[in-house]
């Protein structure tokens, strides 16, 4: 309990710091984001620049000419009310409403990929630790090396060229087909799967390598430990040793990496989701950036940072749940 509270406290502090940091970074923007829009509005409506400026700033709950602390107060007040501001490009879209549409898809894709790549990585990593030589080992090593040399976005490009453009097997954009009704029905589920398979594949291909390497290292370490040796001396069958001794112990340090991997994947989303036009957080991040919609960007960035903090918290809790040594502290 104490452990949990302490972790929660740290996360909260972290969260506050992240809010402030992101806020400051965005206020460091050179020039004035409102300016081009105000000019456009002024010329379109034939009103004075000052008037247009005030109008636009008012529309976006943002005024860069205010002192920074006042802006921060305004922003934080909005945050506490659950108001992250309004997209600059589409004043009617609140950031929260965009988040509510985009976040579930990203979480869906990332967590499914995380689970698949984690399972694969654990299995293959353990396998590599047991068998030090042989074709399987060599081919896994080859795969890991290649995958770690090619950035994920290039894999996304190649996959999309092959499967989307050349073979035309997968859709070019979107998260589900317009012909299905969202809800718990088979066509919808199939459609969601159909649209998400390529992003998931990309994530799985790129992140499995890291898991394999980590798991292999950890497994080799555990295999060399005394308790595995002792278990052999006790006549425990290999199968049980692998499952209960090696894999479980080797996986525990992986849990901490889990949160980091989650952060990394979500961080890479703008490129991957952008490539497949899978309209999750990443695609919106790329879109917001491309259109210089900084308020939306700020909201999205904050949201994914919060997800990373939460993932860290969850990983910590998971860790304490799995490792009896933590509970005592």
């Amino acid at each position, binding site marked *: 309990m104490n452990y949990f509270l302490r972790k929660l406290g740290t996360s909260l502090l972290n969260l506050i710091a992240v809010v402030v940091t992101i806020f400051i970074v965005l206020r460091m923007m*050179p020039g004035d984001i409102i300016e081009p829009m105000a000019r456009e509005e002024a010329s379109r409506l*034939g009103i004075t620049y000052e008037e247009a400026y005030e109008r636009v700033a008012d529309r976006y709950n943002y005024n860069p000419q205010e002192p920074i602390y006042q802006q921060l107060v305004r922003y934080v007040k909005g945050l506490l009310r659950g108001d992250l501001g309004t997209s600059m490009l589409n004043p009617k879209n609140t950031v929260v409403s965009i988040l509510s549409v985009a976040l579930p898809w990203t979480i869906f894709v990332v967590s499914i990929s995380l689970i698949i790549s984690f399972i*694969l990585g654990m299995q293959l990593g*353990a396998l590599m630790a047991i068998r030090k030589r042989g074709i399987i080992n060599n081919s896994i090593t080859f795969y890991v090396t290649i995958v770690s040399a090619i950035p994920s976005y290039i894999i996304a490009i190649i996959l999309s060229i092959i499967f989307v453009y050349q073979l035309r097997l997968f859709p070019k954009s979107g998260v589900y087909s*317009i*012909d299905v009704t969202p809800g718990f029905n088979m066509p919808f589920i199939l459609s969601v*799967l159909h649209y998400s398979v390529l992003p998931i594949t990309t994530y799985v291909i790129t992140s499995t390598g890291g898991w394999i390497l980590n798991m292999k290292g950890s497994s080799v370490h555990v295999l060399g430990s005394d308790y595995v040796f002792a278990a052999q001396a006790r006549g425990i069958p290999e199968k049980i040793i692998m499952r209960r001794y090696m894999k479980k112990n080797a996986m525990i340090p992986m849990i901490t990496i889990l949160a980091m991997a989650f952060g990394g994947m979500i961080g890479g989303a703008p490129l991957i989701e952008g490539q497949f*036009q899978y309209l999750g957080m990443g695609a919106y991040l790329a879109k917001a950036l491309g259109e210089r919609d900084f308020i939306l960007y700020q909201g999205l960035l904050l949201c994914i940072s919060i997800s990373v903090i939460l993932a860290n918290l969850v990983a910590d809790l998971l860790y304490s749940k799995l490792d009896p040594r933590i509970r005592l502290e």
Partner: protein
Amino acid sequence: MRNLTVMRLRQIFSFVLILVLIFVLTACYSNTGNDPGTSPTNDSDSGPVVNKERVKRIAGGYWPAPPGFGGNLIGAQVGDVGYYVYESMFLVIVGTDRVVPRLAKEWKHEGNKTTVVLHDNRKWSDGTDFTAKDMWAYYLININSSAITRYLEAINVVDDYTLEFVWAEPVISDTQKMLLLAEGWQAVTPYHIFGEFVEQVAEIMKKGTPYTGDPTKRPPFGLVFEKDDQTALKNLYNDFKNVDMEKPIGTGPYMVDKVTNVEVDLVVNPYFPDSDKLEFQKIKMHTVSDYNSLLSSNETDSFVGTLPYDMARTILDASGTMVMYPLLEQKSVGVIFNTRVQPLNDKLVRQALNEVINKKPVREVANYWAVETGFATIGLVPSTIEKYVDKDVLAKFARYTGNTEKAAKMLEDAGWTKNSQGKWVDRNGRSYRFVIAANAGWGAQGITAASEVARQLTEFGFETEAKAVEATIVVSNMKAGAYDMMIDFVDMTWNISDPYKAFSSYYGDITEKAGIDLSAAPLILKDYEGKELNMKEAVSSLLYINDEQEYRDLVGRIAWATNDNAIAINLYQNVMAIWENSATSKGLPMEDEFKKYDRMMPLPRTEEEYEEIAILNRAYAPFAEVFVRNKVKPR
């Protein structure tokens, strides 16, 4: 250990197999899951009719993902959907500036009054009658954001189908009246839904007091409001925009059926008069993710967008049925000089630099089909100059041909010399380095054009560097004088290509980028007869000239003076491409010449051709006009 690994391997293998299976299965799903009717087949058994479902698939059109999709046109919440769902009182075909009536039946200008009679057989797509009140509602609710209100005294609802516009003094010319009435998206606010807001605006308007100040800064309807009332108006406008409607309610030929964040399905609006005559039963719109692949694979029937030449050719070859129509845009790209710095403050130098640039290679890399112009910069959209300027005047315009020898001579005449490194030095022995800024938001086009210009200038003897600058700051930096030159739009209008519009955007925006502030000091230029023109005043006087010859004369003088002043280089007038799929639609323009040009069509040769193609472009004229006129049909 060995047995164990084999067993483990089998486990992993089956896991991977399941994953691959899911991959393959979902891949197959695409072939069965898609609506078969929407994918046109070239099956010969079905005879000449291939588009049996009579669907038009359109690529493009940004609309926000739900929940942002609201049924309200204002604030662009429905994107391209608006072109099919809403109608306006009039529409203007950009480029020809022809005004076409839509909801209006007849109209009449009498002194300071214009009376418009509307069709009486129109209904909103929810079944409610469309009346003059709906029109009136639009102008009131958009009191601050509609350009016309600045020139109006009042709008009166005469009866259910008649509106009366009262113009403020001095009364603008009839042409300008028409353009203002037709401009933008008018007349589309259902009173039966937003009546509450409108009536409140009307209440507040009663509290306004007449304006007496500077006529160029006249507020809407010439009314001045207390601060509280102003805030109330602002709030009303914002509240109005934030009303969420599930689907838009309009009077147009189609209405929204289904929406996702990348697709919208439109079906025929049953309340539209002659809706039974609409040939396309359904419009499927897809936001553009990768137009390239959509076009190559014939997965769309219509798209508007400029592509590099090779890509266009590849797409046409890959698809086999797509047709590409290039169409001149009402804007041209050029290089704006910063006239505050030496030596660009010297008109002669600017003219010489204009002469240096060979525009062909620039055009080839940046916008292949674009049209080069011989002008420095004229303020008008170049393609319209012959329409507004007399031939004999036009002959007096200076032309620039990319003749570097001539340019060198021009500089030498001004006292410049070339130094040992082949760089130009001025009378004081000073040499110069230039920086051309390109808007990074333009992507490769901007920077390649800038690089090519820079290369030519450097070759000529002015060391020049091209630089991509972040979109949010490039303009303000240029206005602050941070760069020597900037690639941007020069002679252009955002919508209607009327000379007044074109000049007023030039003498405000472009001049400011060049470092000339017209509000600080009047800009006086000499015309071809040596007569001095106060540019700002001359431009605004265009608004009130009813006499055509007088109008043309003034336009010619302004354009000549602008060209002579040469604060920018007009590189080319932009061209955009319009793509149509001949496999699913028939009745497309120049249908009999597809073979001749291998479906990469030439620029429109006549005004008719221009108009035919222009209305295929949603940005030029509401595209729905195509279907209403029943020209393009499903094949």
